[in-house]
């Protein structure tokens, strides 16, 4: 536990000693604004909720989170500090978890910094803040899933660009698998159960439910087990490839 905390602290502070934190947060908040106000027709929908805001999060995370996650292990490998890290008395699991939690906490902060949006909605109308809170929770969970994927893939290479691209593609697969276009493609010939399975793996369907205020245990379990799975894969990959 102490080790996880030490690594968490080091990583988390690390975001703020480089421009990464500021660039990421500014772009995140800015794009959220753009998407919600212009593309999502935030004002003209005549509804006091943040559905338009959350609807874009899967697409935003699709490229912003891989950008954050790509350095997690690739940099450690390229700078050879991985040799330092894994000759300290810690386990792979502690290192993976500490790094992941730091990155997740950081996205959490970026998410919290979108509060002016929430303020605006509350100023203009009378939204259901419970639904909005659910939306934030769902968004954070989904960000965690994107991060776990990115962290795992970052462990495969010392090249951050490759890590970014592969993470984005894998993330895209997880988002798109719930898209009508993709499902239609399969439903033409594949058995119904397979189509459902593919759809059920989608970030979109699980996230939609939560962001509409329906906190279903299954959706929570979906995201947490996805995170657990990718982090476990991350540990295995690091274990085998740390010295390469």
């Amino acid at each position, binding site marked *: 536990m102490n080790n996880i905390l030490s690594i968490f602290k080091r990583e988390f502070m690390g975001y703020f000693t480089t421009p990464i934190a500021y660039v990421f947060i500014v772009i995140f908040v800015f794009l959220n604004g753009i998407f919600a106000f212009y593309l999502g027709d935030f004002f003209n929908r005549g509804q006091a909720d943040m559905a338009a805001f959350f609807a874009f999060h899967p697409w935003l995370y699709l490229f912003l989170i891989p950008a954050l996650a790509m350095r997690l292990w690739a940099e450690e490998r390229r700078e050879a500090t991985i040799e330092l890290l894994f000759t*300290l008395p810690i386990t792979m699991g502690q290192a993976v978890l500490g790094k992941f939690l730091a990155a997740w906490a950081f996205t959490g902060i970026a998410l919290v910094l979108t509060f002016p949006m929430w303020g605006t909605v509350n100023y203009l109308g009378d939204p259901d803040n419970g639904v909005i809170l659910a939306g934030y929770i769902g968004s954070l969970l989904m960000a965690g899933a994107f991060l776990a994927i990115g962290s795992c893939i970052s462990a495969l290479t010392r090249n951050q660009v490759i890590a970014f691209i592969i993470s984005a593609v894998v993330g895209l697969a997880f988002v798109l698998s719930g898209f009508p276009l993709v499902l239609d493609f399969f439903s033409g010939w594949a058995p119904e159960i397979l189509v459902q399975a593919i759809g059920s793996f989608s970030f979109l369907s699980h996230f939609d439910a939560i962001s509409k205020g329906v906190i279903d245990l299954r959706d929570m379990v979906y995201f947490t087990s996805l995170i657990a799975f990718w982090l476990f894969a991350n540990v295995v990959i690091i274990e085998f490839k740390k010295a390469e």
Partner: protein
Amino acid sequence: MDTLVSVNNLHKHFGAIKAVDDVSFRVNQGEVLGFLGPNGAGKTTTMRIITGFMAPDAGSVTLGGDDIVDAPVAAKRRVGYLPEGAPLYSDMTPAGFLDFVAGIRNLRGKEKNRRITDTIEKTNIQSVLGQPIETLSKGFKRRVGLAQAILHDPEILILDEPTDGLDPNQKHEVRTLIRGMATEKAIILSTHILEEVDSVCSRAIVISAGRLVGDGTPTELRARSRWHNAVTLSVRVDNGKEVQATLSNLPGVQSADLVSQKDGLARLVLYSTHGQSISTTVNQVVRERNWAVDELYVEQGRLDDVFRAMTSKLL
């Protein structure tokens, strides 16, 4: 003395390259073991296996009773390691970095402060504590790496080329530091600087193409030199050839080289058979013949000679 490091029949290959080929050795408390070998001999690979960064293909490593594969965390607690090239988190400051390592090393409160202060003083990094590591000079980086390794006062220290890239003064300081810690620890250090073996190591092993080819105290290793107990002699004669002929026939003299002959001064080197002492015999003959001797001294043998002989025959 306790055996703190025990390396047993290590094997490691990368594709077709046998990086480590059946290497075994032990290091006791109080010993400073020099780890020598040409580039690519397998020193770094061996150290990475000992410190648990790489898994061996076969063989085992025990660090003070803990097996590095079966009990990695317990074994790693006992070790301080300076990896090759001293990699560091370049966006941190030395102060922040040492604080991080202290946390992982389970140092808390007063003890932590005491260890950090002590280490900073020992490695002389006071002046750069608040500066990002990426902006430090090579020498300071190396010393921050060293600080990280000795922070928790480990019983085992493994240093991969600790003085590489340091200026002569800093080299001297680091060697003094290592010597100062020697009695209570088991230390392994790799180096390409053979004087370092004489100045800090109580024992040295030589590895070549992954195989252990030598193990002994610096004196023992030197005794393997062709130069060991050779006699260098300068005599005031015009015909050095005659001296050479006389001396090369002496018992115990393997061969005599006439190195130079000019201005009535002949310089010879007499190699001894199996490194036995020949100086008394040579002296006697010199006196009998009434040669005017300018200099006569006994060679100890040179480590670099031994090193070259040991590591080239396998190539």
